[in-house]
């Protein structure tokens, strides 16, 4: 049996490894996505004071520390039985949307965008942010960098630090926003909205205007009919900060809707001895292997999933973009809801719809008079016991669950992290791309690397956290061994001079 190893695909907390096994006929028999790292936060947080969790768990990910910080802070609200004031919620949600603007921008321009803007078959050396800049203009590159800088500025002012914020407290937030800061943020927000609209236009002009790209998005290679998960508000609109967890089935019907605290009644995590990363699935459907469809409990939690699991967006321009997204991709409305879009590559477009929502929502919040409320740090005297907090991380629903003694010292911790939700779907996508591209012993060399990478990257897995950087490519290498364990071919994604 032939064996193809892709190592490193890049990292989650270390790097991932894909093993592809070919059968005697030379077709793909099976694939494995292995995550070779574990740091063990759930255990070493035991014994720590609960209020330290927002500043300990943000070290799970240095690219999305804001997501862990806010999920941890919300878990403290529940743990200490304290309902934050509406101004506290607004400060946190504004902070969180500033993070979404930077994160989605970086992903689209540096990571996901190059496949489309420059083209999936362009030489690897051009499929990066610099290639995007060449195509759409230098001023755009500057705009991308400026978007990152101005929103990180907001994050640092409001969260205390540029990376690994510290301001979250049970029921509160340690930093109040001043009037001067609010005025500065207003300008930043307007730029964000303009930039998000511009980004959707780039997608229109370059991707949607090109039939080849549209066909690629619609290709079966990148399609899986799974369940979808996302957080929705009282109108079933997408919300990143708070709401109910909603799961829809592959046909678009609501399968479950529950408060985050009930997550364990709905989600179970499977362990495989060949990966340190667990595989969550829907408990009430059941584990049916790495397959899609109604009978498989595998669900997906990404920008595409959030759109599919919702009835729409809570802000006007994003709602327009939402409708255009479904109409263009041929989705019909049943009972007032669009049918789900199952094409994984449409996730990039969904991410831009969310970017616009984040920018609009941030603007609403910055203009809210309560955002400058000086009283955001309440004194909390309740006895803590148990609490769950959840947010939509860019890479999926993020759940923190804490138990403490009466002094607020942690006795137990459970975390279901964004990317972990998508561990099984990513495994499936990699397998499908490999099966399509390797037949009868024929390995489509460049196409294999590109398409497997694309199958993987649309999830924006945290393995690619760090590829949120200029070139926007995942280091990919495929080594093929024959049945004697002899290396017969080696393919590499990059040119030797690939650098910042």
């Amino acid at each position: 049996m032939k064996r193809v190893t892709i190592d490193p695909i890049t990292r989650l907390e270390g790097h991932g490894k894909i093993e592809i096994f070919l059968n005697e006929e030379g077709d793909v028999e099976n694939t494995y996505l292995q995550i070779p790292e574990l740091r063990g936060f759930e255990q070493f947080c035991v014994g720590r004071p609960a209020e330290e969790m927002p500043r300990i768990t943000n070290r799970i990910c240095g690219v999305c520390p804001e997501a862990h910080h806010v999920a941890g802070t919300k878990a403290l609200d529940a743990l200490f039985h304290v309902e934050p004031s509406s101004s506290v919620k607004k400060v946190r949600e504004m902070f969180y949307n500033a993070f979404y603007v930077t994160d989605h921008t970086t992903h689209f321009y540096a990571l996901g965008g190059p496949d489309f803007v420059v083209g999936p078959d362009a030489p690897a050396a051009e499929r990066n942010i610099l290639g995007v800049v060449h195509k759409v203009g230098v001023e755009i590159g500057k705009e991308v960098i400026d978007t990152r800088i101005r929103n990180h500025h907001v994050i640092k002012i409001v969260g205390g630090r540029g990376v690994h914020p510290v301001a979250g407290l049970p029921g509160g937030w340690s930093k109040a926003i001043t009037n001067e800061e609010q005025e500065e943020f207003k300008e930043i927000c307007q730029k964000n909205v303009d930039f998000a609209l511009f980004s959707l236009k780039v997608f229109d002009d370059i991707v949607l205007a090109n039939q080849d790209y549209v066909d690629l998005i619609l290709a079966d290679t990148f399609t899986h009919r799974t369940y979808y998960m996302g957080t929705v508000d009282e109108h079933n609109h997408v919300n990143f900060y708070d709401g109910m967890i909603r799961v829809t089935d592959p046909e678009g019907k609501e399968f479950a809707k529950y408060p985050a605290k009930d997550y364990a009644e709905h989600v179970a995590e499977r362990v495989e001895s060949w990966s340190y990363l667990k595989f969550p699935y829907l408990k009430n459907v059941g584990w049916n292997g790495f397959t899609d469809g109604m009978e498989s409990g595998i669900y997906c939690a990404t920008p595409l999933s959030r759109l599919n699991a919702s009835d729409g967006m809570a802000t006007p321009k994003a709602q327009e973009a939402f409708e255009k997204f479904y109409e263009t991709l041929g989705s019909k409305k049943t009972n007032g809801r669009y049918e789900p879009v199952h094409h994984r590559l449409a996730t990039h477009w969904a991410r831009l719809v969310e970017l616009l929502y984040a920018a609009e929502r941030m603007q609403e919040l910055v203009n809210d008079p309560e955002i400058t409320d000086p009283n955001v740090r309440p004194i909390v005297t309740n006895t803590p016991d148990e609490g769950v907090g959840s947010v939509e991380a860019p890479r999926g629903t993020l759940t923190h669950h804490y138990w403490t003694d009466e002094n607020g010292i942690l006795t137990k911790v459970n975390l279901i992290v964004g990317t972990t939700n998508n561990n099984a779907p990513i495994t499936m996508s990699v397998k499908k791309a490999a099966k399509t591209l390797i037949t009868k012993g024929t390995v489509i060399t460049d196409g294999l690397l590109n398409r497997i990478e694309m199958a993987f990257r649309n999830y924006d897995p945290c393995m690619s956290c760090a590829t949120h950087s200029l070139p926007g490519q995942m280091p990919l290498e495929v080594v093929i061994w024959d049945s004697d364990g002899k290396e017969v071919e080696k393919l590499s994604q990059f040119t030797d001079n690939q650098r910042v």
Partner: protein
Amino acid sequence: MSEKPKLAMYWAASCGGCEISVLNIGDKILVVDDVFDLAFFPCIADFKVKDVEGYPDGYIDVCLFNGAIRTSENEEMAHLLRQKSKVLVAYGSCAYEGCIPALSNLTSKEDTFNTVYFDNPSIDNPDKTLPLVETEVAEGTLTLPSFYHTVKSLDQVVDVDYYLPGCPPEPPQIWAVLEVVVNALINGGPLPPAGSIVGAGTVAVCEECPLEKNVKSITEFYRPYEIQPEPGLCLLEQGIVCVGPATRSGCGALCPQVGMGCRGCYGPLDDVEDQGAKMLSAIASVVSVGDAGEDEEELEEKINAVMDSLADPAGTFYRFSMAHSMLKRVKVNGNGANGGDTK
């Protein structure tokens, strides 16, 4: 062939925040690109471990190594990069002193696996499956690196030339260090003595903190949610634990300025081996010990009462420096400092 000096950056057990900190030096990143050729940088460039293995010893001029040593793979990479690098920098708190991942040294590998894979409300693992170094599947053998009992800092497995503290290091500090390195490589300028801590100050965080200190003694500690601190005044003097007195400056005292105590991510001061011990003595100096002539037993009771109001001193005072501290690891289930994973 380019004659530019070669730069490498690698992550071991880390979060990616160190890479983000480098990107946050802004347009200076273009200067870095101008001056260096990259030799290995899994975050942004396609050099493979095999490429590094093929380099002559000392081929890489500067290697920024971030992340702690948590698995066998992390340690193998540390040895390889030491061999191939002229200057090896422990970049960021994890590589320097263990950081948050080294809080794991307060527990054991067995308890970690038990919690992560057996005992939590969402787990579905009736067969008690655990990740294995080798797994036989129908198609062949799958391998994983082994998970160590004890988290180590980089200098506990290889020799380190410089340490750049912070979780993550602050961008202006990173740039200051790179400027010195660039000057040394291009113009033959001086490098700091081997073993130096670079990109940080030499005084305590308190010295760069704008909050006003009044040499006030305290009688009780507050958890951060139990008090609304008086703006502009020292947090520690208001009874909020702040590790600033035992922590090296360099960050700009960011956390205290938003009303949250320092947690010590820049590590201990010069000539202080143990940050936690230093912090205990700093605490002792602000705790009210009562008036002269008071009964000694009463005094001791008072002190004990104040100290009891401190939550989790080990996990707080050694939040970032556990691997490097005199504690190194707490004995759990018979696993000592080197339990189960000696080289």
